[in-house]
């Protein structure tokens, strides 16, 4: 889950960043897109924490990362894909509910929820959470 070089067996000379071990999220386009958009998810430790957070939220919701994104979308009458206001609101509220179970408060709680929102944002779901201003 931490995405270290050793874990991927990809040691040795390389021109690019070390490959990311997505663990159970391997093959998830949504997770890959998230990491691609955020420059590989930062340093390996940070990336590992982010993936673990996503894993906990997926367990909380009983769904997969790709379905999390899909739940925020809907098909239009013309066959296009649009953001579902209902689905997005429900997911946003679920993030708030999930954060409440994590035992955090203040800035840490807000940042945690927004990290999850970042996953959706980088998958095209326009979403805002609260800012930490106190």
């Amino acid at each position, binding site marked *: 889950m931490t995405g270290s070089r050793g874990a991927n067996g990809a040691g040795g000379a390389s021109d690019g960043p070390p490959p990311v071990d997505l663990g159970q999220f391997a093959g998830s386009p949504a997770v890959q897109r998230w990491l691609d958009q955020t420059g590989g998810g930062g340093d390996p430790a940070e990336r590992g924490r982010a993936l673990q957070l996503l894993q906990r939220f997926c367990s909380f919701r009983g769904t997969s990362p790709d379905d999390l994104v899909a739940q925020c979308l809907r098909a239009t009458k013309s066959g296009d894909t649009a953001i579902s206001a209902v689905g997005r609101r429900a997911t*946003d509220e679920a993030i708030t509910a999930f954060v409440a179970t994590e035992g955090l408060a203040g800035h840490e709680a807000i940042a945690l929820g*927004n990290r999850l*929102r970042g996953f959706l944002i980088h998958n095209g779901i326009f979403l805002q959470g609260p*800012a*930490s*201003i106190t």
Partner: protein
Amino acid sequence: MEFSRVVGTRRSIRFFKSWKPVEREKIQVMFEAANRASRSMNADYFRAIAVNRDDLDAETRDALRNPTTTADLDLAPTYIFWYIDLEYVAGAQDRLKELVEQHALPAAHGWSKAYVDDFLWPQVLEPISKDPNAVIFMGAVETGIGICNAINAAVDQGLGTCMHAFTANEAIKPLLGVPDTWLPVWMQLVGYPAEEPEAGGQRPRRPLSKIFFEGDCRHPWEEDAEVTEHLKREGMIQAPGPFPYRAQEVRMLSRMYGLPE
């Protein structure tokens, strides 16, 4: 700040110093600038309500929030709600005659009180006032002109500002006492920028030749290089974004406020 630099420095500011209130006198300057804007019929097309975030009770603040407008509301210390007053045509007859008396609308250009009373009002303006599409179209255009002045006045005073979709009118209407005849247009967020005023550099714009023409539509406007250089010196044209450190600036601000990266 000189006019050229005000125009060139304007950005949509999205990171505000949430802790620093906006002085009331600076809002008044913005309102006065809007009130001095060009407007047809000398009509008062718009209404605006300035509200300090911290003066709102929790119920009102929550009523404004939605999944796409939450962080913005937390960061900006002042909101200005802009509306079209759909009754703006009322009184136009008297206001236009006042302009005739002031020689702003002179006979040299065909204006007279008789023209206003006998033709313009009954045949043009009163019918327009009964056409909802025309009322909204004119109201939106003229309100935008007023808002533009307010935006530039904000920049001139060192403030940052950003226009936002205003979708929560029904929720806050009773709380703010908004009449039924006011149509929501924009919610303007105002505060001191937490990001640099340049906000990472000037935004990309297409060349004048893509947008403007000379003589007819077949002849795109050709820029005079000397004028362009003059505008660079005066600050209307500034260094383009993104500055090399922009991504880091946004990252650090996001972390400070606990926002997504």
